[in-house]
């Protein structure tokens, strides 16, 4: 239903949102783009000359960049592996007949609602600390030397922390998808003589494949921007061992005050995210009926 009147009203009603988001997109992003072509350092005020792609050259050839890129991929990949496999497992487990399913759900979902700084610090101090953390106590109990997680395996430790936070999200989504599976299909498979593993591979998994893809895409978008957990645990260190692209740009921009270089890095991050976003938008578009 659309009449001339309602069409005009609709246009007015939607404009604040559109204008604000348009502004939010265009203004800062174009500024970043602009800065990326300048020699701009906050420690040298008044010096803003155009230097073309020099910032990009430096940023992309900096060994720190390659380290950060690798770390970013490891971070995203590691968390994805843990959350997808863990999520599928948990979803299947929670779908089984049991008592107190509601409470188990709450227990499993809880980590997602804990703010990133809290979870990072709790893990860092109360679990991973080589002197007072629970893992250290457990190691001593077993007669092993305590492992200094954040110093010796910083990236791995952060992967663990972030995976703990995102596992509930994956579980919830996959559980929802799993529960939307028509029981009739499973029964038909049973009648056809399929056993548990066959049922899983040929019916359940394909049904969930769409949800799995969505979880991968959405988590990737958010995981590219992991920040707080790195900031409060390792600050990117030791060296660049746990620096991802987001943290690298942050460090260059707000710690070294190199606006030009940081902006170039920011644009690189945007391009990376866009690649993933294109695939995600296609999936959303397929499902959206306007």
């Amino acid at each position, binding site marked *: 239903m*659309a009449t001339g009147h309602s069409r005009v009203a609709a246009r007015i009603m939607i404009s604040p949102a559109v204008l604000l988001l348009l502004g939010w997109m265009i203004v800062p992003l174009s500024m970043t783009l602009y800065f990326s072509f300048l020699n701009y350092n906050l420690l040298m005020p008044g010096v803003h000359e155009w230097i073309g792609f020099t910032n990009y050259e430096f940023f992309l050839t900096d060994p720190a960049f390659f380290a950060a890129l690798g770390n970013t991929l490891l971070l995203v990949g590691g968390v994805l592996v843990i959350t997808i496999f863990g999520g599928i497992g948990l979803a299947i487990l929670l779908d089984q007949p049991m008592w107190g399913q509601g409470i188990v759900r709450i227990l499993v979902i809880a980590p997602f609602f804990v703010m990133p700084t809290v979870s990072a610090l709790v893990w860092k101090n109360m679990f991973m600390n080589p002197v007072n953390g629970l893992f250290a106590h457990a190691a001593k109990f077993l007669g092993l030397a305590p492992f200094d997680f954040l110093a010796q395996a910083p990236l791995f430790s952060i992967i663990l922390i972030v995976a703990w936070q995102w596992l509930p999200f994956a579980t919830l989504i996959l559980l929802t998808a799993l529960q939307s599976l028509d029981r009739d299909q499973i029964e038909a498979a049973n009648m056809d003589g399929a056993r548990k593993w066959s049922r899983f591979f040929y019916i359940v998994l394909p049904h969930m494949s769409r949800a799995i893809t969505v979880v991968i895409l959405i988590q990737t978008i958010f995981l590219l921007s992991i920040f707080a957990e790195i900031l409060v645990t390792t600050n990117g260190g030791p060296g660049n061992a746990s620096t991802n692209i987001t943290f690298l740009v942050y460090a260059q921009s707000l710690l070294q005050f190199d606006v030009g270089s940081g902006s170039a890095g920011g644009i690189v991050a945007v391009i990376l995210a866009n690649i993933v976003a294109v695939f995600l938008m296609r999936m959303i578009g397929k499902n959206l009926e306007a």
Partner: protein
Amino acid sequence: MGSINLHNVTKKFDDVEVIPPLDLDINEGEFVVFVGPSGCGKSTLLRMIAGLEDLTSGSIEIDGQDVSAVPPARRGLAMVFQSYALYPHMSVRKNIAFPLKMAGLDQAEIDRKVDGAAKVLNLDAYMDRRPGQLSGGQRQRVAIGRAIVRAPKAFLFDEPLSNLDAALRVNMRLEISELHHTLSTTMVYVTHDQVEAMTMADKIVVLHAGRIEQVGSPLELYRNPANKFVAGFIGSPKMNFLSGAEAKKRGAHTIGVRPEHVTLSRESGMLKGKVGVAEHLGSDTFFHVAVDGEDLLTVRTEGEFDIKHGDTVYLSAEEDRIHRFAEDGRTIQ
């Protein structure tokens, strides 16, 4: 009060013209039914009269005033939707009172009118319930109550009985017709059910692909359909169409004769055929007869007729009950 005139009205959705130029006059106090198959544009036409859809071109007048640009709230019409469209968060009383509240009447006046409508529609016992707690028929009545209470110039009904079960439908049909007699307000009623059209209308408008095929009283459409489409649409079961030798004999491309006008005989008749399935309704029996070179013919007989599946039978009809159609579908007079 309550005359509606459509002049040269057209409607396009994107670039598809769903209603080519159309003229129609609805007189004060008439019960007019728009009928036609799905997608023929009858609901669209109704919604254009209501103001819920814009006209692509042309004009609509209500009581002589051009309302083409007037929003629905100000046309003085009331509409009953197929899904009733009751406000789920309001009680029945508040639902019926809503239009009066929008019109700014004071509470005492509103109460008076709401009680009046409730009485007419037997809703007194349900006034404080929510729509979710009512049955289909009760909801229908609340929707009608909400329409009545505004004393509109005309009522618009958009397939109001489609969601009800068969028995309820028959009852509501009678109630709506009664309402029309009581209020004498113009009613424009859309349905795809030709039985509703035939039983309720003063005037029927048969629509097909956005075009008006014929306008007339139920009996006019039954006796003198203007073309093959109307002839086949009005009347249940459908009119039988023959396009073989019998048609050519009478100088027509196709001839049509209604099942109730065909007589069966075991000895002789115009056409010879073989009996197929028989449908026994008790009061009538419908036989489906296979005739060489034609589609299956339906024949109605009263009561019982002793004939079995596979028997040979002869069909006849009176000449003045046989309709002749030209190749383009028009009736040949």
